[in-house]
């Protein structure tokens, strides 16, 4: 049987999203960015919002997000994506705007920008990739690096006395009345990917419904930065990251509404 006999519409059970650009990715094997990019591409296609979407890319590995998701993109300076997104959405309230940021970008250098954008309740989606390290610059300590975790700038492991505590910024953000939906997800199992996709879909729908800021953290792996195989990285994440950064919705209400009980 020839391959052409197999590739027929009636045999199609899975297809790559048309919004995902068909190219070689620079992400390392096992990296969570690729999965999140795939989910976002699928949602943009399924929700038919390509023409109204403007993405704001961060500094970090996802700086090249525009090579993979076929939408209009703006590349922001390190940490400034929420401010850039504010400028876009205030002047273009009919667009779907999302900022895609890593932990160093969002929780360290851009802490002021993210807190204030969320506090103003800017009508946008924030996708926060938390892999507890600076992947692109070679695996340095991030604000979310776990206590005792070895990185290139904490060769003896993160030391609370010296470096302070791993920052639970998503919990902080959930306290801000400008946010309507704040959740923490992961993409390390097929089930987690499906849940994460549901969360991102809800975040996008909230923006379309003008509900203020929706914030989706994705606890992620950085197998290169962690110096692990992709499988080991997934397991290490499940055993170490998720207990400290527990998954689930922190807030699902309306802008100005309370933090939910769960």
């Amino acid at each position, binding site marked *: 049987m020839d391959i052409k006999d197999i590739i027929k519409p009636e045999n199609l059970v899975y297809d790559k999203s048309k919004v995902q650009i068909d190219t070689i990715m620079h992400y390392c094997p096992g990296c969570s960015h690729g999965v999140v990019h795939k989910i976002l591409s699928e949602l943009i296609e399924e929700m038919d919002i*390509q*023409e*109204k*979407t*403007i993405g*704001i*890319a961060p500094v970090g590995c996802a*700086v090249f997000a*525009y090579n993979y998701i*076929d*939408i*209009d*993109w*703006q*590349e*922001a*300076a390190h940490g*400034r994506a929420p*401010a*850039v*997104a*504010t*400028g*876009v959405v*205030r*002047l*273009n309230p009919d*667009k779907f705007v999302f900022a895609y940021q890593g932990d160093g970008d969002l929780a360290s250098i851009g802490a*002021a*920008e993210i807190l*204030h954008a969320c506090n103003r309740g800017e009508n946008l989606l924030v996708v926060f990739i938390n892999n507890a390290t600076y992947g692109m610059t070679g695996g340095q300590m991030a604000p979310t690096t776990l206590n005792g975790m070895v990185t290139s700038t904490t060769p003896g492991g993160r030391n609370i006395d010296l470096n302070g505590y791993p920052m639970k910024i998503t919990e902080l953000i959930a306290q801000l009345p400008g946010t309507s939906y704040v959740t923490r997800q992961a993409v390390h199992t097929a089930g987690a990917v499906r849940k994460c996709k549901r969360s991102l879909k809800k975040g996008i729908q909230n923006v379309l419904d003008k509900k203020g800021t929706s914030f989706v953290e994705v606890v992620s792996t950085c197998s290169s930065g962690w110096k692990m195989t992709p499988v080991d990285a997934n397991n290490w994440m499940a055993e170490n990251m998720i207990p400290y950064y527990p998954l689930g919705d922190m807030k699902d209400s309306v802008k100005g509404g309370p933090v939910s009980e769960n």
Partner: protein
Amino acid sequence: MGEIRLMKGNEVLAEAAIRCGADGYFGYPITPQSEVMETLMARMPWNETGMVVLQAESEVASINMVYGGAATGKKVMTSSSSPGISLMAEGISYIAGAELPCLVVNVQRGGPGLGTIQPSQADYLQAVKGGGHGDYKLIVLAPSSVQEMNDFVDLGFELAFKYRNPAMILTDGAIGQMMEKVELADFKPRWTKEEIKEKWGSWATTGKPDSRNQNVITSLEMDSDKMESNNQRLQDKYRKMEEEECRYEAIMCDDAEYIFVAYGTSSRVCQKSVEIAREKGLKVGLLRPITLFPFPSKIIGKLACKAKGFLSVEMSAGQMIEDIKLSVYDAGCIARVEHFGRMGGIIPSPGEVVNALEQKFL
């Protein structure tokens, strides 16, 4: 004849922004320019023209909001004073690198550091040499009156969009706080979505339809050859500005043996100094650069072949003098170039300037 009013320089910046059809202003309070945002908030242009005005959490945020808005093809501006402009330097570099049009106003105060809230011209080099990291230039306009504060808002936007480059109005606390008669411009409507798509659709991030490729606003390029050609494109743009956008005013320079070179507040002082010197029988003129980048090098070079000397009069330790010396050098002339200035927020008096001329040259 447009509407005539008595207004502060800072207030006029706000009024001119509304009238020229600006889409957005993002700012952060700092003396001596806080009246810009205060005036806008009081005027509530969102009711009148749809212009958005937002107080940001910092200058860092406001310039990045400008980046985001400008990248969608909108007319966006911010204003600040010296310490705030230093904070914006990062964002301005990104805006120049990503080739976005926008207007930044620096109502200068004295430095370094927190310095003083009094007027100064000590940010000249920061403004005309780029100010942030990397090889880039801003189009720098230097108003010397409240009328020019009005006129240069529209002009700044026009040049910014013509070259897809940030433009800066470099003024100071004196002109910002000064009240003068001003003839306001007539209202221009804001661009519609269709107009923006038609004018800037080739680059603006307005959402990707099937009919075109994605638009990406970035200053990043990892391929060195491509990055060099990006740099070259910027440099070609700056050379074109030097050829086509140079603006200056020459007052009594035709027979002048000595020429003051001064912009903004200093040039107002020097106009009087020319009168005093002429009464004394000294052949003195004033060359007032209106664009600081591009700098009016050619006219200075021409004058350098006839004049005996230039006195750069600045409210700084001497910054523009470097560009005057380069202009004289490029012209192959040997006219002497000296500096006189006051710092710390002090505006020199016309008499002081004439004394300085006599001491340094006669």
